[in-house]
């Protein structure tokens, strides 16, 4: 097959461009550990509010001092409705739903995950100090646009470990292999 010279130059050019695109992404994920939330763990949606991980929703600090958030989506609210977190600190979110699919989105950050009933989502990120809106970004019914929560991020020094800290929940984990 005869391919015109200009076309051959173009083919190599776009080939190199796409390789660079993929190389950049692979580099970010392997070298810096950037991955989308890809936790594999299942949970009975009927038993969420009785499970060790989600019985109480909110902020807790584990035995090693790391900050976690347990949150539950339901039509049409996030539990809890307000969170206070320390700035510049990695926070691990654990999320699930008791009814339909929701989308947990901390506006103007890269913190977001789909929240699927029957599954536990998990991601870790950190924030600059400020007030944030947490929206639902997956259509969940007629009140979808009203489903929101508030996140307040305060400077690390001003942040106090919540009094009712849950020590280290074992989680409702079944077949967690990732």
């Amino acid at each position: 097959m005869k391919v015109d010279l200009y076309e051959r130059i173009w083919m190599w050019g776009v080939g190199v461009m796409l390789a660079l695109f993929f190389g950049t992404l692979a580099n970010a994920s392997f070298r810096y550990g950037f991955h989308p939330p890809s936790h594999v763990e299942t949970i009975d949606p009927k038993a969420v509010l009785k499970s060790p991980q989600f019985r109480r929703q909110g902020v807790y600090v584990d035995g090693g001092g790391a900050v976690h958030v347990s949150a539950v989506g339901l039509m049409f609210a996030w539990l809890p409705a307000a969170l206070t977190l320390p700035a510049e600190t990695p926070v691990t979110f654990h999320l699930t739903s008791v009814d339909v699919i929701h989308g947990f989105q901390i506006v103007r950050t890269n913190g977001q995950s789909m929240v699927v009933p029957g599954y536990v989502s998990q991601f870790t990120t950190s924030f600059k100090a400020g007030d944030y809106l947490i929206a639902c970004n997956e259509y969940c019914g007629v009140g979808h646009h009203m489903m929101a929560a508030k996140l307040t991020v305060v400077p690390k020094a001003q942040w106090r470990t919540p009094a009712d800290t849950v020590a280290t929940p074992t989680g409702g984990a079944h077949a967690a292999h990732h």
Partner: protein
Amino acid sequence: MPRTTNRLILAHIWVSVLAFGVAAAMAVMQALSRANLEVPYRSARMYYMSVTAHGVLMALVFTTFFIMALGYAVAHRENGAIKWPRLAWAMFGLALLGTTMAAWAILTFRASVLYTFYPPLQAHPAFYIGLTLVVVASWGWCASMIASWRESRRRNSGRPVSLAMHGTTANAMLWLLATIGVASEMLFQLIPWSLGWVKTIDPLLARMLFWFFGHPLVYFWLLPAYVIWYALAPRLAGGKLFSEPLARVTFTLFLVLSTPVGFHHQYQDPGIPAGWKLFHTFNTMAISFPSLLTAFTVVASLEIAGRLRGGRGLFGWIGALPWRDPAVSSVLLAGLLFMVGGFGGSINAAYTLNSVVHNTAWIAAHFHLTVGSAAALTFMGACYYLVPRIAGRELELGLLARIQPFLWFLGMALFSFTGHIAGLVGLPRRVFETSYAGAAQASAWQTLTTVSALGGLVLFASAACFVAVILGTLLAGKRTAPQMIEWAEPLSPPTDGFRAGLWDRLGLWFVVAVVLVILAYAVPLWDVLHLTRYGSPGYKPF
């Protein structure tokens, strides 16, 4: 042309254009609603119903019926007759029945589940059964296309089929492979569950099956547009097709690469390990390659046209193109919008960047440039060429046809560019109103959604022009003799005498596509099926 094939094609065009008109009217209300403007009948319930209707009628009904019409026109041009016309009519009836069932369920508020219909939101069974019938009918169309392609190969004895037939057949084959996903979701999950035969459903498995289908669906929309760009537009613009053999390779690559990419819609999902998502990222980058080849070949062909028409200098050929012919201007403007949409798409597909834009207004803005412009605007322009030839009538309201693509371009620029920015500053997609009870971060969206609503009004004006022109032509155009479609000539006929080669063997490439799909999906699907899973009952919060 025998009258019966023409009637078949026009029957599809009628359904397509009427669905488009209803869906466009729905969209105006949505655009105004997101700008927090009060309009009559505005309510959240009405909004989510109308978003569902808009998505289903535009993305599934308008496109599918037009694509089937174009396919029959291509096959007819190829062989002088289509294969299995009775099957084709039966499938038209089935698709119309399915569309009517789904439309009834949606318009009576029984199916406000949006066109992605993620369970455990549960629609009326008529919605799922109706859409399944449309898919089954499209399989009949695929069979007719593949049979026509084989017939053409036999008749050509060793010479390749026309580029348009090649592209259309590649599309039919990729559609057969892709719809395995949605058909499985419908038959094994959604339909039994909505009828109450099973109590619960696994929403993650449903999403995996949906997106197995959902991304190749994009190419099912796009490939007919590429057929028009490669095989028709150069001729209408007064030029020749720059590189015929490479255009064939492009269509074949789409057949191979379209399906093993679905996880790039599920980056933010739990339950799918990161490594498999990255594998789908790689495949997604690979499938940008044939689109980038298309960009070169189509622009080069148009440059030939512009220079043949007397255009001089580096950019002078652009102005020399026949911008007054709506069948040409629609392709040119659709291509311009698609360049932006294509790069936006590679951001969506970027494994790491996706978390900034996923499920925001950016996404809706993005696919209004791809399916909503590259495909839809091209289809509208193609109608101005095809409908008069097939109906044997002169184009009515030519002035409206001439301004329509420009109105679409302007409306889409306003709607889409503001939508992209609003998404970057966090506006979720598919929300009835955007104020979030006065949240500080939400105030950044107000101006953007207002400009976007203005774009919606311009788009509606454009859509109204299109519907008026086509219905006017079909009902009142001056009668002439029906004419054949004429495909663009290649610039340089191949030196090896036009032999069908490796890239023309679509059956072989279909097998390669199946192997890639198994590589991309077998293990993650197996893993999900072997988790301890808890199903969900249905919810109808609408």
